């Protein structure tokens, strides 16, 4: 674990970081990924009974490894409850991981020897989903933004001044908004304030946890545009968590797909979207609705609910719902191997491992997911009952 500059990861990051400009805050060099997560794991105890005994564990995040190159946007998609938000909180260390390590720009996050939590949190900031709940109702907008700077030793005047500059930067007139309370703002304005607050400490990585999901489509587009402009202007790196597959494709350089606390597929966004490798990814993308009435979904691509994360299935966690599941899938989990040895587009599936023993090993289903079925002829108008099915 001491070998930080892993050749495989580094090659990938140069490929993807590309035009990231030199940053004075940069320590590890351009080739060093901004953040490496290594085997992160968090199991929440389910307590109950008379004395709060631990009855079981929810496997919220179970051995997640990935890296984010400087200047890229890594999208994270998955169903509700797959551990996306837990992952975000683990990366900020808002919750303590049970296992695994974080390496930020070449420095391991550790109180004793490496980067302290305080330093990590200065460099990694987060924008939450609920724009209303993430602002203190009893603080003015300027106070909320200035709080973090005050914590890190700025004077009241300096912090207020910068808060106002930040408001302007996210497109809110400081003279108008600085003294307002959150309840006086619209959802989009609140989320802009949240972004301004996240930027206050001059972070390098911004975690956007469903940050635009709750906004109106038109406001969402504005905020996405703002995020794009900020990223270029401030040399930011994004971890973009969302369940909205279209938005993730629009903003991400790379995409990670999560299922039941694990990353099942990770790779360049276009690659993953055009040629999804994991059966789950294929099914997930098959759920996307198309604006073309002829390309409608005839059957639900995924049957059933995700299994209970308290008691995840043995072997490959997707095997109970997978159309290609075989004995080997139940017997053992597909091993993605060491993170540094991963290919650019990695898939945790036995079908992608020639030596796995799966009958389709080395010959996985390819192409656009089957769920994108053409339901009618081109000249035929769509029948309502088909839409309802």
């Amino acid at each position: 674990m001491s070998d930080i500059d892993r050749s495989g990861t580094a090659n990938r990051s140069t490929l993807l970081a590309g035009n990231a400009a030199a940053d004075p805050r940069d320590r590890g060099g351009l080739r060093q990924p901004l953040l490496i997560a290594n085997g992160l794991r968090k199991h929440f105890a389910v307590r109950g009974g008379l004395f709060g005994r631990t009855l079981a564990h929810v496997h919220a995040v179970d051995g997640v490894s990935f890296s984010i190159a400087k200047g890229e946007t890594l999208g994270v998609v998955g169903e509700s409850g797959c551990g996306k938000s837990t992952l975000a909180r683990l990366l900020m260390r808002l919750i303590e991981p049970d296992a695994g390590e974080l390496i930020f720009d070449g420095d391991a996050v550790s109180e004793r020897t490496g980067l302290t939590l305080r330093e990590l949190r200065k460099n990694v900031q987060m924008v939450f989903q609920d724009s209303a709940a993430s602002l203190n109702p009893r603080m003015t907008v300027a106070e909320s933004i200035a709080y973090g700077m005050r914590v890190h030793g700025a004077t009241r005047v300096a912090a207020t001044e910068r808060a106002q500059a930040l408001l302007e930067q996210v497109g809110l007139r400081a003279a108008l908004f600085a003294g307002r309370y959150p309840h006086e703002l619209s959802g989009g304005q609140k989320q802009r304030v949240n972004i301004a607050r996240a930027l206050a400490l001059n972070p390098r990585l911004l975690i956007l946890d469903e940050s635009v999901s709750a906004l109106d489509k038109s406001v969402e587009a504005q905020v996405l545009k703002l995020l794009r402009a900020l990223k270029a202007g401030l040399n930011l790196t994004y971890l973009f968590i969302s369940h909205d597959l279209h938005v993730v494709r629009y903003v991400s350089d790379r995409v990670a797909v999560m299922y039941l606390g694990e990353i099942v597929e990770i790779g360049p966004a276009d690659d993953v979207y055009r040629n999804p490798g994991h059966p789950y990814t294929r099914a997930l993308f098959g759920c996307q609705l198309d604006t073309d009435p002829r390309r409608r979904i005839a059957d639900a691509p995924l049957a059933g609910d995700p299994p209970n994360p308290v008691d995840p299935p043995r072997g490959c966690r997707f095997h109970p719902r997978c159309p290609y599941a075989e004995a080997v899938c139940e017997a053992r989990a597909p091993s993605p191997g060491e993170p540094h040895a991963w290919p650019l587009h990695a898939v945790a599936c036995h079908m992608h491992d020639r030596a796995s023993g799966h009958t389709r090993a080395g010959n996985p289903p390819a192409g656009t997911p089957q769920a994108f079925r053409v339901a009618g002829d081109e000249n035929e108008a769509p029948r309502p009952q088909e839409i309802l099915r």
Partner: protein
Amino acid sequence: MSAVHSPAAVPVASPPGYLHTIARRLQHDYLTLFFIAVLVLTVLAACCAPLLTHYDPFATGLLGRLKPPGWQGHLLGTDDLGRDMFTRLLYGARMSLVMGVMPVALALAIGGTLGLLAGFYGGAVNMAIMRTMDVFYAFPSVLLAVAISGMIGGGMTSGLTALTLVFIPSLCRIAETATAQVRALDFVEAAQATGASSLSVIVAHVLGNVLPAVFVFASSLISVSVLLAAGLSFLGLGVQPPTPDWGQMLAGLRQAIYLQPLVCALPGLAICIVSFSFNMVSDGLRHAMDIRA
């Protein structure tokens, strides 16, 4: 939008702080201001009692017992031992205000802090604090106060201690619930995400959102405290006669209610006015603290 307004054009004026905002809002709440004035006058009257009356609160007069208001210069009449009621009410305000406010204030400080910690940290801390509170909850409050007073003896201090201990569990519970609610909101997590210490997060973000709820409840306890103190005095466990105390005066004059109802009702009226004022002021404060209203 941002392109039009250059940052340089923005005046750097610190927005009004939270306390400022509350004060400004209170300025226009005349009802609350009126009851604040009532309380201030009561406190002033209690402090300046010797200047407002030339009677001795302990001087008895067997010839002038239970006289109506206005009798021979006695503004509000005399009690069952012929002592001047007005004087005794003034002096009694001292004890009653102390017995009403002090236990609640102390319990608010102790119980509120414990509840805040329990709600904020949760887990084992919560378990330890709240289960201890549950033990206190298990006893009826009057019985508990009597037991505590009985244990450490009579007198004002023991009454004060007993009442404080009685109020701690409920204030702790309210504070804990309110804190746990606030704790679950994202802005607390966002504050922690800046790298701030728990203390800073609690003071800056949690306290302001918890206090209003606790405040309202605490102010309603003041009247309860005055009455409980009276009950303790009546049982001989709180303030001892002849020290004037509204609750004790009420208890003492109880037997004379058919002879001189007006005079007997006076201490009760005083308790009523003060506790009602406290309720109104706390309501007004809560309203002013609720930025959204």
